[in-house]
């Protein structure tokens, strides 16, 4: 998008450029014809110009081939301006070169070079990719460049960003589900549930009940009180709090916590609700890249499939 939307500026630039190039040529030509008088005055070898008291300008003619170098630069400029777009946007140059075009060509060249390698992995199923050392290394590099910002360099996530190395999967851990998560992205939304469970102390009671599901430290009296209120949560998390991967509702019966496993944190979750977004990667990563990174993620979750800690070779 050009800041100069009027074609006038293109001609403005083109004229200045063309006049400058041709002007250099004409100036050179006139200087090559020029003769200076020497042998007059008290000091015949100088032009008579003196600076700083003793800095004199001498008549030291340049070698003739030097002038030809100047002419070559003029010819070079003319050839360059004919071939490449150097005269504003009105004349595109005979070669039709653009920086975008060059980038596209380089990407294409890279695809031709690396395409077969990616294709090889794309044809393998995910478990095989996860078991292949080179595939894992490629996946690890893609992961570090694209996924590690949220999920961490080790894939163990952070508060609000799922840990990919444990056995719990918010949206399902089978190869297809992992790939769908990456390709389409995921949006999880837990609404604020304070009112639904009765508000006030009831929220804390439900929190204790939730903690009791995984055998975490809790107050059993409050948990017992919270049990019936949990019915409101069961719509998504299931009556036993086992979660529902189809909705992204978390399994509450284990000690893996996405937003913290203290009474305070769980209370906050129930009171305010939670929202989690995983962006869609289709269009950002290619199909083969997604396949490789999905394989790597699978190897993280099932260390037996391959050494998850395998360092990524540069």
């Amino acid at each position, binding site marked *: 998008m050009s800041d100069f939307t009027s074609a006038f500026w293109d001609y403005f630039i083109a004229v200045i450029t063309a006049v400058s190039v041709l002007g250099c040529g004409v100036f050179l030509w006139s200087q090559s014809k020029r003769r*200076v*008088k020497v042998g007059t005055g008290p000091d015949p070898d100088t032009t008579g110009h003196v600076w700083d008291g003793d800095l004199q300008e001498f*008549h030291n003619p340049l070698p003739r081939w030097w002038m030809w170098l100047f002419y070559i630069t003029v010819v070079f400029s003319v050839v360059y301006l004919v071939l490449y777009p150097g005269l504003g946007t009105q004349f595109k140059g005979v070669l039709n070169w653009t920086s975008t075009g060059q980038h596209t060509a380089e990407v294409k060249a890279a695809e031709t070079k690396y395409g077969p390698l990616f294709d090889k992995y794309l044809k393998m199923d995910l478990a095989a990719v996860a078991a292949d050392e080179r595939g894992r290394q490629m996946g690890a590099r893609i992961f*570090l460049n694209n996924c590690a910002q949220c999920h961490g360099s080790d*894939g*163990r*996530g952070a508060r609000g*960003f799922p840990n990919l190395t444990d056995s719990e999967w918010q949206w399902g851990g089978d190869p297809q589900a992992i790939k769908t998560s990456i390709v389409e992205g995921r949006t999880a939304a837990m609404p604020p549930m304070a009112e639904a469970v009765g508000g006030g102390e009831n929220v804390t009671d439900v929190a204790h009940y939730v903690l009791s599901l995984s055998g975490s430290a809790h107050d059993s009296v409050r948990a017992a009180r919270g049990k019936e209120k949990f019915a409101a949560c069961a719509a998504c998390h299931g009556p036993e709090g086992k979660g529902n991967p189809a909705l992204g509702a978390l399994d509450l019966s284990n000690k893996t916590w996405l937003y913290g496993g203290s009474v305070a944190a769980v209370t906050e979750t129930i009171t305010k609700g939670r929202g989690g977004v995983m962006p869609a990667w289709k269009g950002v990563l290619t199909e083969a890249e997604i396949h490789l990174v999905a394989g790597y993620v699978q190897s993280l979750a099932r260390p037996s499939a391959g050494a998850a800690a395998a360092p990524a*070779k540069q």
Partner: protein
Amino acid sequence: MNDVDEGNRVRAAAGEVARQAEAVQSLYARRVEIYPRAKIGDHLAWFQKWRWAAVWATQLVYYGLPWLSWNDRQAVLFDLAARKFYLFGLVLWPQDIIFLSAILIIAALALFLFTAVGGRLWCGYACPQTVYTEIFMWIERRIEGDRARRMVLDREPMGPRKFLLKSAKHAAWIAVALWTGYTFVGYFTPIREFGAELLALDVGGWSAFWVLFYGFATYGNAGWMREQVCKYMCPYARFQSAMFDQDTLIVTYDAARGEPRGAGSKKKSRGELGLGDCVDCGLCVQVCPTGIDIRNGLQYECIGCAACIDACNHTMAKVGLPKGLVRYSTTNAVRMRLDARAMRRRVFRPRVLLYGGVLLGIVAALATAIVVRVPLKVDVIRDRASLAREVEGGLVENVYLLRVSNTTEAPRRIALSASGLPGLAVASEARFELGPATTVSVPLRLVAAAEAVAPGSSKVSIEVRAEDEPTVAVRETTTFLGLRR
């Protein structure tokens, strides 16, 4: 600067008579071919020997170095694609660029020092332009003959003999130039394999380009351009005058002793004729590779090759006068008639001592830096998104990405450890194999008891060491974040 001006003034004065008449001149002039004479007497003269010694020394190194081997690889190889620079036992990485800077600074300071003391020693003896010109002129002499024969040949119209001689000369030049280009590329790509590829005519575009380009530059500069490179193109030639002073060793003509010049006569002594020691044989002008007359004083064209000293000494010996009418001396020594000892004493002046002191300091610093250099490079990159994690067992966990490079050619077994907080431990894999000359990225997890870590950041250090060699260890500090309470 003043010396140059003085030289020009002397020259101007000499040419004044000839140019009394008004003349016109173009801003550009045809180059006048220079035919430096090589033969002075029957043997190589003293400074000629030195110049040839410099040619042999520099070119044995240049052409020979890529063929040496070290531990089954080329001893000196600058592998640009892999970004590894092999210098015998040393493998340098791009991170070691500081060593290159140090070497460049040393080279610059050495140039300053040698120029302040000895004038254009570099230009006269060691500069590739001088050295290759010397080699190319030797070839030219072998084929076309010395100065007089070449001048005659060039005036002749083109005939079969001339064509044959010229073709032979250029063929020989091109052969040397291409070999030079091939050697140059051999510093950047294994020279033996590259040679085999060349024989099979299966070389990459860039390698072929550099062989031809470097070869063309050698052929063009040493064969055709010669003194014009020094006169019109070389920046060193220009700024070396800033390192000159009145006590810098230069090639001088002792005008007080030599003038008035004249051939003399057999009947009368030079004294009777009122002549100085210069017999005006013109040999000093004939041997000059830049085509100047040293008797006009110091000129910017003079590259300090001392060919005129050899020539004059030869003539002086022949006519039975003392040597040294043209000699290495200083402006002050000539003006104040200093003897050699007094001249040598004046070498120790502030500028020389300063250049020398700084040069020694940097050489020592570079040597120390190379000796104590740890062949293991570590970068600790904190994960930015995940600050601190709460993990089971009341622990707090931080994640880092370690980038570890093994700059040696032997595999290493690396062990990671962390310290700085009570109970700080490495939770991820603390040991791994690191291949020879490789870089790996390793996620590192550190854990500590949550209550032992203050909220906010604490300084911790991560030690990466080679298990087989305790001296090879790097300690990096980073931050460890505690949980907010």
